[in-house]
C-alpha cells in the first residue's frame, strides 16, 4: 500500500474514497512534473516574466542600527505579483492544472491572498475559478474579495464552523468531491493530504533557493537565523528549504500569539502547549483541538495565520528540533509593523509581521557580524482596514464614515 507523504509520523492522506482516483492522478502528474527539469524551467520563466522573481533580499540598515545586533535582511516576497509568496505556489499549480487538462480551479483562502493569487492565476490561464472564504475573513479582508471578483472569480462566503480558513478548506473539499473530474483544488499552503504538502513546499522552495544565493553574496556567509511566520507553513517552508541542510542556520517559525497564549485566543499549534496530535482536513499534524478531538476556535489579527492545523513537514522538523517555534501577539505585531514602516519604509502584511516580531526580540542579543533573514511573505496594503482599525486612525474612520453615508444616501 502507498504510504508516501509522511514526514516522521506526520502527514498522510486521509481522504474520502471518492477522491482516491483524483489523488492518484494528481500524484502522478506532480511526480512527472517534479521529475522533469523542463517543468521547473517553465515555472522559473513564468515567475520571472509574470511575477518579479527573483525577489530582492533587502538589507534593513536602519533596523539593524536600531537593534544594534545582527545584520537584518528581509526577503521581499511582497514584491511578487499579487503581493505575497502565495503567487509562487499558485502559478506552479496552474502549470500543473494545464498539464492535467482541467478547466476549473477552486481554492480556500484566509487572508484572501491565496484567493487573489488563485483568481489571478485562473484569469491568466483561462480557468473558471471559485474561492471559498470564511465569512469572518470575507469581512476582515474585503478589498481582497473585491479584487477576486473583479478578476472573474466567484467568492463563496463559508458560514459553517468558525467561518475561517479551516471551514473554507472543508467547503472546498465538498466542492471537489463533486467536481473533481474537471476541477483542481489549489491548496494554498503546505497542509492537507499528500501530495499537497510536498507540492506546495516544492513550488515555494524557490524562495529559499534565491535567499541562500542572495545572502551569501550580500553577507559573504550563511545567516545565523531565519525567521518566518507560520500559518499553514508555506512561506516558512519556502525559505527554510534553502537552509535545511545547514545545521549552523537556526530556523524559527513564528505563530499567531493572538491575545496571548495564556488567553487561549491564539493560533499557536507548536509554540506553547495547546496543540495536540490529530487527524483532520485530510492529514495528521498538531491541531488546536479539545480532548474529544473537536477543533477549537483560533484567533489572530492576521487572517492568514488564523488556522487550527500546521504543515506536517514543519511539525516533523519541530519534533526533530530542526525548527524552533515562537509566537507573536497581536499587540507585538502592531508595534513591529509601525517600527518597520517608519524605519525602513516597508509595510509587511500582518501575517509577515509576526516573523519581524521574533527577529526583533533576538537581533539585539546576536553578534554584529551575524546575519538574520526575515521572510516578508507579503505586503500590508491588503490589511489597510485591519491596520487602520488597530491603530484606531481617526482620519481614516472619518473618511469611512463619510463614504458610508454617501453610499447609504444613494
Amino acid at each position: 500500500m502507498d504510504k508516501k507523504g509522511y514526514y516522521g509520523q506526520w502527514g498522510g492522506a486521509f481522504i474520502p474514497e471518492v477522491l482516491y482516483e483524483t489523488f492518484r492522478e494528481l500524484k502522478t502528474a506532480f511526480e512527472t512534473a517534479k521529475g522533469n527539469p523542463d517543468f521547473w524551467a517553465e515555472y522559473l520563466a513564468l515567475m520571472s516574466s509574470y511575477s518579479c522573481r527573483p525577489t530582492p533580499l533587502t538589507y534593513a540598515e536602519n533596523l539593524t542600527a536600531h537593534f544594534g545586533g545582527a545584520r537584518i535582511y528581509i526577503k521581499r516576497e511582497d514584491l511578487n505579483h499579487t503581493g505575497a509568496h502565495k503567487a509562487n505556489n499558485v502559478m506552479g499549480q496552474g502549470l500543473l492544472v494545464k498539464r492535467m487538462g482541467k478547466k476549473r480551479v477552486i481554492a480556500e483562502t484566509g487572508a484572501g491572498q491565496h484567493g487573489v493569487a488563485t483568481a489571478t492565476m485562473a484569469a491568466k490561464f483561462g480557468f473558471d475559478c471559485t474561492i471559498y472564504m470564511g465569512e469572518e475573513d470575507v469581512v476582515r479582508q474585503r478589498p481582497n474579495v473585491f479584487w477576486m471578483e473583479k478578476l472573474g472569480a466567484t467568492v463563496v462566503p463559508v458560514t459553517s464552523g468558525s467561518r475561517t480558513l479551516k471551514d473554507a478548506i472543508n467547503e472546498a473539499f465538498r466542492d471537489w468531491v463533486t467536481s473533481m473530474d474537471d476541477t483542481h483544488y489549489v491548496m494554498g499552503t503546505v497542509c492537507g493530504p499528500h501530495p499537497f504538502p510536498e507540492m506546495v513546499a516544492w513550488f515555494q522552495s524557490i524562495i529559499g533557493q534565491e535567499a541562500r544565493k542572495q545572502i551569501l553574496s550580500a553577507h559573504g556567509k550563511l545567516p545565523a537565523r531565519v525567521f518566518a511566520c507560520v500559518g499553514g507553513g508555506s512561506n516558512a517552508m519556502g525559505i527554510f528549504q534553502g537552509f535545511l541542510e545547514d545545521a549552523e542556520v537556526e530556523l524559527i517559525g513564528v505563530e499567531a500569539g493572538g491575545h496571548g497564549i495564556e488567553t487561549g485566543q491564539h493560533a499557536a499549534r507548536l509554540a506553547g502547549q495547546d496543540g495536540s496530535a490529530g487527524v483532520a482536513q485530510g492529514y495528521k499534524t498538531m491541531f488546536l483541538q479539545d480532548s474529544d478531538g473537536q477543533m477549537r476556535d483560533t484567533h489572530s489579527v492576521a487572517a492568514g495565520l488564523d488556522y487550527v492545523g500546521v504543515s506536517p513537514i514543519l511539525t516533523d522538523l519541530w519534533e526533530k528540533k530542526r525548527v524552533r517555534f515562537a509566537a507573536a501577539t497581536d499587540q507585538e505585531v502592531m508595534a513591529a509593523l509601525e517600527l518597520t514602516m517608519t524605519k525602513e519604509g516597508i509595510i509587511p502584511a500582518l501575517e509577515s509581521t509576526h516573523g519581524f516580531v521574533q527577529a526583533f526580540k533576538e537581533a539585539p542579543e546576536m553578534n554584529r557580524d551575524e546575519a538574520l533573514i526575515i521572510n516578508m511573505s507579503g505586503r500590508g496594503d491588503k490589511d489597510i482596514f485591519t491596520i487602520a482599525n488597530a491603530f484606531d486612525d481617526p482620519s481614516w474612520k472619518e473618511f469611512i464614515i463619510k463614504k458610508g453615508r454617501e453610499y447609504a444616501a444613494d
Partner: protein
Amino acid sequence: MQLTEYLRKQKAQKDILLMTHLVLGYPSFAVNREVIKQMVDNGVDLIEMQIPFSEPMADGPMILKANQDSLENGTKVRDCLDFAAEITASHQIPFLFMTYYNILFKYGVEKFFKKAVEINIKGFIVPDLPPEEGEEFLALAKKYDLAPIMIYAPTSTEERMAELAKHANGFIYCVARRGVTGKKTDFDQDFGDYMARCRRSTELPLAVGFGISDKEDVDLLTGQADIAVIGTKTIRLIDEKGPEAVGPFIASLR
C-alpha cells in the same frame, strides 16, 4: 462474521434491507432515542449513529449543520458512548458508529474498539480513513471482531474495489454518486454499471447510500443492492415534522 451473517439472514426474508442514519445529540439525545425506537419498530435492519465532529469534510450542509448543532448543544464523545450503550441494550438490531478518524484517534484507537465491543457496537464507518491510513484500525477490527465498513465510490476502479474488498467486512458501503451527502441521486444506466462492478468485486452485502429519500428510490435499488441507506432524509423529516414522522416514513419505504 456476525454482522454479515445477520444481514444475510435478514436478506433471506426481505427484498432489501434498510439502514438508517442519525447524528448523535441532534437535535437532542431524547429525540435520538425516540427516533431510533420508531425506526426499529418500523423494521429498520441496522442503524449507523454518527458521533459529531467539528470538521465533517464528507458531509453535506444538512448533516454538517447537525454535527455543529450537536456540538454546540455540548455533546461529548462520552455522551455518545453512554447513549449507544443504552440503545444497544434496549434494541435487538445491530448498531454501527459513523464518525471521522480524529474521534477515534484522540480517544485512543484500541481503547475505542474495546469500548465499542463493551457497548455492543457492530462496526465502524469512517469516511476519511482509507485502508492505506487504516493499518492499526484494520488490525484492531480483526482483533476485536468489529466490522470495518469499506466504502466504494463511483470513481473506484475495479482494482481499487478489489483492494478495498480485501479489508472489508460486514458489508460494503457503496456511495451512490459523487459529492457529499444530502443531494438527490438519479439511478441511471451508469449507476447500474457501477453496482454491477461493486457486485463483481465482493461477496459481502452491498449497502447503497447518498440521496435515497423515498420508496421509489428503494424500489429502484431492490435487486441491485442489499441495503438501502437513508441518511439526510430522516434528519430533514425530523427538522420539519418532528420525530413522530419518522415511523410512518420508514414504514412507507417497503
